[in-house]
Structures are given as structure tokens and as C-alpha cells.
């Protein structure tokens, strides 16, 4: 009998602190699998952001830096400029990337900063207990939109891939999800492409993973997956928003 599925080498033995059914864990594993497959763990520096994934530095076996809230793209830029031949990735939540870190995100993208960004869009601030995120849906009830997100007051959700695809430095902007085996496989392909782009110096790659937060959505893991399908995916259509390799060109 051969092992057909086991924990990737690039993941440490520290058990995840995530809530039951939280998709952060699946995405961690996919990133680690890609590091394994590309054989770059020893050459990689990951940047953990501030959000539920803040402890990512414990989970990946590569070198890790923990960045301030929203500043992972800047930290990654500093690392990449000092280590142009290493592989640098950030792992960021929607609050981190699209709220406090919006300027750093737009500028890393427009600079074509040669990094790979894993972006967990779970429409909420998980870590701090369920406040509205820039990606929370219209009408969504959160701790800080207790009557449902009123777009007249709190504004409209931001579609990050669409926004960043207007920038010349973006090499890949793709939205995936992990609600099913097929989608998980697709997500992994996208993540792999994001890392390959970096190795081929094509610029900024962002893989947005539409994710769940069962805890702060107040749903069971199973219900959360269904809510994601029913509510998130219509607002955040899966797909490739920019891909310079498809356009046939380097950046």
C-alpha cells in the first residue's frame, strides 16, 4: 500500500489553532503542498499577517516573519528586495489585505512586486471576534453591523481581484474557493501558478480564496460551506481576473 495522501513536509507538527471546520487549514495545506512540489521550502520566507492566521509562522516549515496588521506586502517587499532569488509569500485575511493594508496591497501590485499573496476572503474579521470586513456582504450581520451591513452607511464590499486587475504590475489575480474537492484542486493549481509566476519573475500574484468562518458566521462548518455557496460566490465570482501568462506575455 502506498500513501496517497499525507501531511505535506512543509507543514510543521504543530496542530492548527483554527476553529473546527475553518478553511484556513485547507489553504495552509495547499500552500505547503505547493512548496513541497516546487521543492522551495528551504528557499522560502513566508510572511504571516495579523488575523486568525497570525500563528502561521508556527505551521509552515520555511523561515517566517510575522508582520504588523496590513503591512505584510511591505514586509514581503523588504524581504524580496533583499533576497531577490528567494521565494516570498504573504498569507493575509480580508481585513488585513483590503482594509488597513489597502495602500500596501495596491502598491505592491502596481510595483509588480515579485511575490505571491494568498488572500483569505471570509467576509469577516475572524480573529477579533466577527466584525464587518471590507468584503462583508450587503445586509450581512456582523458584530459591528448588527442590523446587517447597510451600504448607505458602511459602504459597498470591495472586490479585490477586480480592483487589482486594473494595475499593470499584477501578474495573476484569481479567485478560487475550497468548498469541494474539485474546487480545492483548482485552488491548488492557482496557488501553484502564483508561486511559479514568482519564480519566473512575472510580478505580483494574488490568489483570493473565498473562505468560511463558521465561528463568526454563527454556523456549523457544513452550514458555513453552504452559506459560502449561496451568498459569497454570487457576489465574488470565481475565475481568473488577470493572468499575464494567458495574455502570453511577461509583465
Amino acid at each position, binding site marked *: 500500500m502506498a500513501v496517497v495522501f499525507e501531511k505535506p513536509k512543509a507543514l510543521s507538527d504543530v496542530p492548527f*489553532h*483554527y*476553529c*473546527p471546520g475553518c478553511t484556513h487549514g485547507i489553504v495552509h495545506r495547499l500552500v505547503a503542498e505547493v512548496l513541497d512540489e516546487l521543492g522551495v521550502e528551504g528557499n522560502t520566507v513566508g510572511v504571516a499577517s495579523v488575523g*486568525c492566521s497570525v500563528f502561521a509562522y508556527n505551521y509552515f516549515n520555511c523561515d517566517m516573519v510575522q508582520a504588523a496588521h496590513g503591512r505584510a506586502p511591505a514586509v514581503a517587499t523588504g524581504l524580496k528586495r533583499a533576497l531577490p532569488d528567494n521565494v516570498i509569500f504573504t498569507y493575509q485575511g480580508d481585513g488585513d489585505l483590503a482594509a488597513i493594508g489597502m495602500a500596501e496591497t495596491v502598491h505592491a501590485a502596481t510595483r509588480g512586486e515579485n511575490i505571491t499573496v494568498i488572500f483569505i476572503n471570509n467576509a469577516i474579521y475572524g*480573529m477579533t471576534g466577527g466584525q464587518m470586513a471590507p468584503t462583508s456582504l450587503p445586509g450581512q450581520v456582523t458584530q459591528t453591523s448588527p442590523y446587517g451591513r447597510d451600504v448607505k452607511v458602511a459602504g459597498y464590499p470591495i472586490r479585490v481581484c477586480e480592483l487589482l486587475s486594473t494595475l499593470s504590475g499584477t501578474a495573476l489575480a484569481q479567485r478560487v474557493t475550497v468548498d469541494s474537492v474539485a474546487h480545492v484542486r483548482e485552488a491548488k493549481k492557482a496557488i501553484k501558478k502564483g508561486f511559479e509566476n514568482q519564480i519566473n519573475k512575472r510580478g505580483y500574484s494574488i490568489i483570493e480564496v473565498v473562505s468560511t468562518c463558521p*465561528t463568526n458566521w454563527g454556523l456549523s462548518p457544513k452550514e458555513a460551506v453552504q452559506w459560502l455557496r449561496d451568498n459569497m460566490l454570487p457576489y465574488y465570482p470565481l475565475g481568473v481576473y488577470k493572468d499575464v501568462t494567458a495574455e502570453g506575455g511577461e509583465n
Partner: protein
Amino acid sequence: MANTLNILLAGFGGQGILFAGKTIAYSGLLDGKELSWLPSYGPEMRGGTCNCSVVLSDESIGSPLVTTPDVLIAMNRPSLEKFVDKVVPGGTILVDSSMIDIKVERTDVNVYYVDATKIADENNMHSCAIIILVGKMFKELGFCSKEALDGAIQKVIPAKKAAMLELNQKALEIGQNA
């Protein structure tokens, strides 16, 4: 300091630790005592352990963080193991023996084992195990007046959740008879 009661409630998240602490706190309020209620907070709460310090006193309260409890309510094994040695000599430990399969080895404390979760399950009041222990604590320590205890449970449960209130009242009673 004799008139100060330092209470620590500890277990998993989801076992009603903070709620029970609040009930005790309200009983203090209704008795006109000084009191404080302090939860553990932070990411470790998710699914992990959860605990809550409650202090009842006749004097204004210094630190609301209970590190050496007079009373420990332990709702799972890790919590009991973590705090058993912190209880002051002569103190009280209430153990949910449905959840905890070990015994307290100390002899200088009063230990009460109540099959709280099992009893709660049998009475269809799954979330009320800890309230049974609060009832037991009341019986053994009389930490507040009966009126205050009854009033407290009404304070902490919103009026519209009458069914919940009834269950909790029943749980308190079961505890007082346990």
C-alpha cells in the same frame, strides 16, 4: 479579607462558564455586595479553554483576577489539573465528574463531585450543567441570599427566553439538592 470570596470557573468554551460567572456576579449585585467579573479573553478561547474570575466582597475589590481561588468550579480535566493546586487551603472545589475522571488528591480542601453534565443531559438541559454546580455551590457555601440567587438567574436571562429561564431555575434546584 475574610469577607471576600474568590471564585474561579473553568472549562471548555461553550460550557457556559462566563454565563455562570455572570449569574454569581448578579447575585452579589442583588445582595448589595462589591463584586467583579473577569473573563479570560483572546484567541485561545476558540474551542480552547475558557475561564472566569468572580470576586464577591464586602469591601472594594483589588485585583479582579483570581489566581488563588476560594472556590473552583472545574468543568473539564485540563482545567482541574491546571488550577487544583491554586485553591487556598480550606477552599472548595466543585467538579463535574461527568467530564472529569480523576479525583482531587488534596486533603486540605472540600471537594464536591457532581455528575452535572450527565444529570443535565438526562433532564434535557444540556447547557445547564454548570448551573447545577452553581446550585451545589450555593447549597454548600451559601455565598448569597436565596432571593439574590433567584433574582440573578432572572437578570441574566432575557425575559423573552422564558423556557431557558425555567430550565436554569430547575438546574439551580437540582444543584441545591445534589
